[in-house]
């Protein structure tokens, strides 16, 4: 039996970002679904003007949504900065200009289609399919930030946020379509999260690479050097 070797993959800043991002997205999704279709949480029979702060009201839940939105924005900027600084944190870029990208993409697709055995094919820290998915999710998160702060800022159309993100409201054809787009893309991110969790667990089961724990401790385990390890150096 060949020994597994330990490879340092994820920087501490990336791991911290990942979990902050996860938490803020969960809070944003839960509060966002409520805002789209609100219902009573025990605020009946109270004078509307005084109800704020007494229980979980629409106003409070929107406030939580906005705070989580600010955290998502800050963490996204942080993520882009660490990607600029350290090559280790640039694994989300799909290198479509390289031929290995396409051959490995085929391998991964065959593996997921159960055509190939999971143990066949080359070892990779991050396969091209995952890179493409992460890249698209970053775009989706950016889209949510832009549309979210666009709508948030347009309560003061000559204010700061509107001057930065207000344009998105008009390029999507008005504020109502912007609300709808914000809603649809939120669901896409949740769909990604479900598939993401499944594939990470699957990877851990089939290849024993320590995929799940790698986002806590930063290490993955391989028997030989993975093909894309040189990108980390």
């Amino acid at each position: 039996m060949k020994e597994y070797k330990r490879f340092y993959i994820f920087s501490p800043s990336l791991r911290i970002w990942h979990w902050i991002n996860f938490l803020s997205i969960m809070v944003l999704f839960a509060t966002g679904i409520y805002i789209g279709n609100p219902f009573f949480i025990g605020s009946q029979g109270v004078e509307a003007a005084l109800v704020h702060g007494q229980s979980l009201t629409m106003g409070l839940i929107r406030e939580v949504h906005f705070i989580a939105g600010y955290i998502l924005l800050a963490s996204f900027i942080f993520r882009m900065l660490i990607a600029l600084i350290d090559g280790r944190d640039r694994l989300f870029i799909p290198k479509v200009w390289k031929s290995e990208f396409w051959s490995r993409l085929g391998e991964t697709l065959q593996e997921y289609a159960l055509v190939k055995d999971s143990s066949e094919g080359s070892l990779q820290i991050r396969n091209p399919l995952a890179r493409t998915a992460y890249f698209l999710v970053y775009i989706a998160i950016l889209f949510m930030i832009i549309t979210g702060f666009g709508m948030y800022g347009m309560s003061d159309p000559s204010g700061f946020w509107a001057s930065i993100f207000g344009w998105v409201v008009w390029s999507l054809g008005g504020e109502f379509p912007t609300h709808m787009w914000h809603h649809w893309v939120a669901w896409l991110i949740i769909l990604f999260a479900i598939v993401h969790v499944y594939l990470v667990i699957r990877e851990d089961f089939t290849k024993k690479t320590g995929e799940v724990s790698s986002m806590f401790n930063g290490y993955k385990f391989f028997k030989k050097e993975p093909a894309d390890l040189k990108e980390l150096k």
Partner: protein
Amino acid sequence: METFWEAFKRHGVSRRDFMKFAVTITGMMGLAPTMVPKVVRAMESKPRVPVIWIHGLECTCCSESFIRSATPLASDVVLSMISLEYDDTLSAAAGDAVEEHRKKIMKDYWGNYILAVEGNPPLGEEGMYCIINGKPFVEHLKESAEGAKAIISWGSCASWGCVQAAKPNPTTAVPVHKVITDKPIIKVPGCPPIAEVMTGVIMYMVLFDRIPPLDSQGRPKMFYGNRIHDTCYRRAFFNAGQFVERFDDEAAKKGWCLYKVGCRGPTTYNQCGSMRWYNGLSYPIQSGHGCIGCAEDNFWDNGPFYERLTNIPVPKQESNADKVGAVAAAAAVGGAIVHGIATKIRNSGKKEE
């Protein structure tokens, strides 16, 4: 042309009433009290501005709204403040006589008159869906716009396209700014716009001899700077989470927020919440009906009006984003489980290396 003050004197208006009027319209235009002397000065010195008001593909609701303006009275605007030289709906004259007059005014005040456009030009079939004076309206519009100082796009028709431009837009109706591209255009959307907003825009333009400050969409900032939601008197119920669920429930009687029955207040920019209609009497939300967003682009296609989330096209059933999303998420979880089991079977019987 005589000045406003001269025209007022001619109508027997006292100096005191004239001053009251100046103070009132300063407030209606959204200007600070410190601007009152400037408004008075302008009314004493500025000549009245000739206006040509043309009608394209429309329902005349803008005119109907306009003539109900209370502060100032539309009659004051038409008779004293502007010089409404051509309006085929309001003018007593008709036919060739009034068309000749339009051409004469255009020649005499070339570059100085304001063109007000109500309705929009249909481009389909070479403009044959709207004929004015024997010619397609689009030609009438282009001809009238040539010598105009500025163009006011009255209502959602001229500003966005409105109902006649809703899908599938059989007449290819387009807003004015798609046809006239070389003139400053002030959009005054709404179906119709609030009467006092209409007169307010005209007053600003004639008193200060410039177009009002516009937002990125070309709408006057002082009238379209807020969402109806942000000025709505029912906003407290929204923040409290107290919503009307059906139009016949207890909450509707209590006057709670109409968000869940499709109110478009949160996505619509207009003055309904603060200026209101009929001299400040009421507005749709106050009467218990949600806003339908008539001042917004494409409002007609953003239905249904009585639902918060629009349907997304799932064949053969009514579905909104939440329903489709929940089904897709459940399918993804189910798919993951099935795929996981299949993976297990595929890899079974394999030894650890």
